[in-house]
């Protein structure tokens, strides 16, 4: 239905392009007047005016229609004698009514449900009809309006400019609002979580075992239950595990990435560079899940074997394997970004160093790297935030046990992995266990936000120096 409407709107408005163009052309000839814009702009003007209002209306309508119908139906059901104790029950009844209407309902039918389903069908019909009528009305109105403007030889080029500017603005607004929406949803769910679990218990607790939280309703939690939950959501093992694995990853990625960046920027001939840079960047294109099973199936067992030879017990899921593979995954980020910043150190600085008799490596060590340092630090911080946010490799290679350990041979876990664990499968949405995922998400978000902020500041500071 909606698709057909959209299709019709687009067909109709695009055909108006040709009408607008030829109409203004003939207008110019017959009336012997100078047009205020090229004929095609009148075409564009018509297209934009006839499609955008109708499409926007359709969008808004589709957003609000279900909400309005739902409240009406729940109202009518209540009037017929249905009793709802809370919102959930009302929702359930509404879903039942919908199912009856669609013919997929299999439960018991009573008179209330039957009546409501009929009412539902009636309202759906009314809404659909009035939608079509309103849309046609809007199209006719906007077409008449724009045609009248065209006949008066409006400044169509400027008007199109204004409309397009508006479109671009709305696009960026959507991006911003989405971000805001995500942050708010994280925030609200987290607030619910922190209303049950004290924020200090969360931030400084050293024990993470969310499966203990079987409390269904967070609002009616008893003191005893709370005492039990109090030490189930300790954030420390997760942040420690995350930091530890990220640290191991950086231990691999920073030296290898930085040195390969230096080689690419300073030593590699054009031919080598042209070949090897894309190859390194392919590393960044490998899906992380592929790294994941490489870590879990090849590297993990390999470490265990090597460990056994040295008489060490290595867990088959170890922080070491996850960190190593994650480090390899991150190499291209560090390498490519530091290559770029090293490349943008002006040649004149190198010349200045050579001119006092410094060798190439002295120049790199004492002039180029210090000059590029803020940028390099920025690239490393971006890589760290990448490492912290990485999930798949850790799920597959580092295990799920929230151990508070700094032994790289034991299994450990990270924030992202725990979020996955919590949300996989059927969940009660108002249990603290589920809500804890939002709290974790929020914490992670804040951590990476701070890192990105610092990184961008560092990169910016570096740019200012030479531009």
């Amino acid at each position, binding site marked *: 239905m909606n698709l057909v409407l959209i299709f019709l709107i687009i067909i109709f408005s695009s055909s108006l392009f040709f009408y607008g163009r030829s109409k203004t052309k003939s207008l110019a000839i017959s009336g012997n007047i100078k047009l205020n814009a090229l004929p095609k702009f009148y075409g564009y003007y018509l297209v934009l005016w006839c499609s955008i209002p109708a499409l926007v209306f359709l969008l808004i309508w589709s957003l609000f229609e279900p909400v309005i119908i739902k409240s009406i139906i729940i109202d009518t059901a209540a009037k017929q004698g249905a009793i709802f104790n809370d919102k959930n029950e009302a929702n359930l009844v509404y879903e039942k009514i919908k199912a009856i209407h669609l013919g997929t309902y299999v439960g018991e039918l009573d008179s209330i449900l039957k009546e409501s389903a009929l009412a539902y069908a009636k309202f759906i019909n009314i809404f659909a009809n009035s939608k079509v009528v309103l849309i046609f009305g809007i199209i006719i109105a906007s077409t008449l309006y724009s045609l009248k403007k065209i006949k008066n030889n409006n400044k169509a080029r400027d008007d199109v400019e204004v409309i397009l500017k508006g479109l671009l603005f709305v696009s960026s607004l959507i991006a911003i609002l989405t971000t805001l929406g995500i942050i708010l949803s994280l925030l609200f769910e987290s607030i619910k979580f922190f209303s049950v679990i004290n924020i200090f218990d969360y931030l400084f607790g050293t024990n993470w075992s969310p499966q203990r939280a079987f409390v269904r309703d967070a609002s009616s939690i008893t003191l005893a239950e709370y005492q039990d939950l109090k030490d189930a959501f300790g954030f420390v093992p997760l942040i420690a595990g995350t930091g530890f694995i990220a640290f191991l990853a950086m231990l691999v990625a920073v030296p290898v990435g930085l040195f390969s960046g230096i080689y690419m920027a300073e030593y590699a001939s054009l031919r080598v560079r042209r070949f090897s840079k894309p190859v390194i960047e392919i590393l960044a294109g490998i899906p992380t899940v592929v790294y994941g099973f490489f870590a879990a199936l090849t590297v993990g067992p390999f470490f265990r074997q090597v460990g056994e030879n040295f008489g060490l017990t290595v867990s088959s899921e170890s922080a070491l394997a996850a960190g190593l593979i994650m480090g390899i995954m991150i190499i291209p980020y560090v390498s490519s970004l530091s290559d770029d910043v090293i490349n943008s150190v002006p040649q004149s600085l190198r010349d*200045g*160093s050579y001119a*006092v*008799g*410094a060798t190439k490596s002295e120049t790199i060590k004492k002039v180029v790297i*210090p*000059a590029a340092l803020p940028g390099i630090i920025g690239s490393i911080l971006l890589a760290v935030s990448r490492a912290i946010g990485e999930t798949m490799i850790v799920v597959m290679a580092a295990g799920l046990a929230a151990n508070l350990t700094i032994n790289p041979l034991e299994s450990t876990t990270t924030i992202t992995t725990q979020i996955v664990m919590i949300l996989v499968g059927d969940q009660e949405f108002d249990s603290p266990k589920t809500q804890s995922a939002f709290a974790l998400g929020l914490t992670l978000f804040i951590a990476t936000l701070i890192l990105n902020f610092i990184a961008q500041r560092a990169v910016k500071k570096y740019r200012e120096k030479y531009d």
Partner: protein
Amino acid sequence: MNKVKIKSKNLNVHYGQKQALFDVNLDLNEKEVTALIGPSGCGKSTFIRCINRMNDVIDICKVTGNIEIDGVEVNDKNLDVVSLRERVGMVFQKPNPFPKSIYENISYGPKIHGKGDTKSELDEIVENSLKKSALWEEVKDRLDEPGTSLSGGQQQRLCIARAISVNPEVILMDEPCSALDPIATAKIEELIDDLKKTYTIVIVTHSMAQAVRVSQKTGFFHLGKLIEVGKTEKIFKNPDNKMTQDYITGRFG
């Protein structure tokens, strides 16, 4: 007439397929300022970059022929480029101080070459270099500030001080004043006049007036060829070559 310090014989330079210098034969005298003039792209900068082998940095650049300093061949494959550049300093068109403190900008060269083992020796080198480049009075209280915080003219004098710091015999200057205002230019010219007592100086310039003011000898390049060379006075008053005459009177270039 001072003795010849640098001597080029049939010097040719190619950038890839393109030839930038054609059989240049030019003698530069010790403790004198030689100015190289000519229109853009005529090869004057390429020539001075041959003297300290800065062209090595450019991959596609190939230098053939001879260039000698005190009778020692510069283009010799076995020559230690690092010690050559220690003897032949260079100042560039755009001031290029390192993004380090003023002090570190000067101490960089001496440290690399193992001069000035103790802090006080290094302090002395820094102070002397800055004094010689007439910058000491302006920066002595703020040696820890970044070199990039100085004004353009000061930065260029800092770069001259950096070149002096390793105590070279020759200083090459590639249009050192082209990015500076007249006042800063005047200061640099004064400084060049002073420096020639100690160093052999080669300066590339687009300003005819500057060549007249600072140099004793002038060479005119055109399209990669050395057209005429002689005493500055003669070149500017009574050149032998018609092209030189046209260039200095501003008829082309």
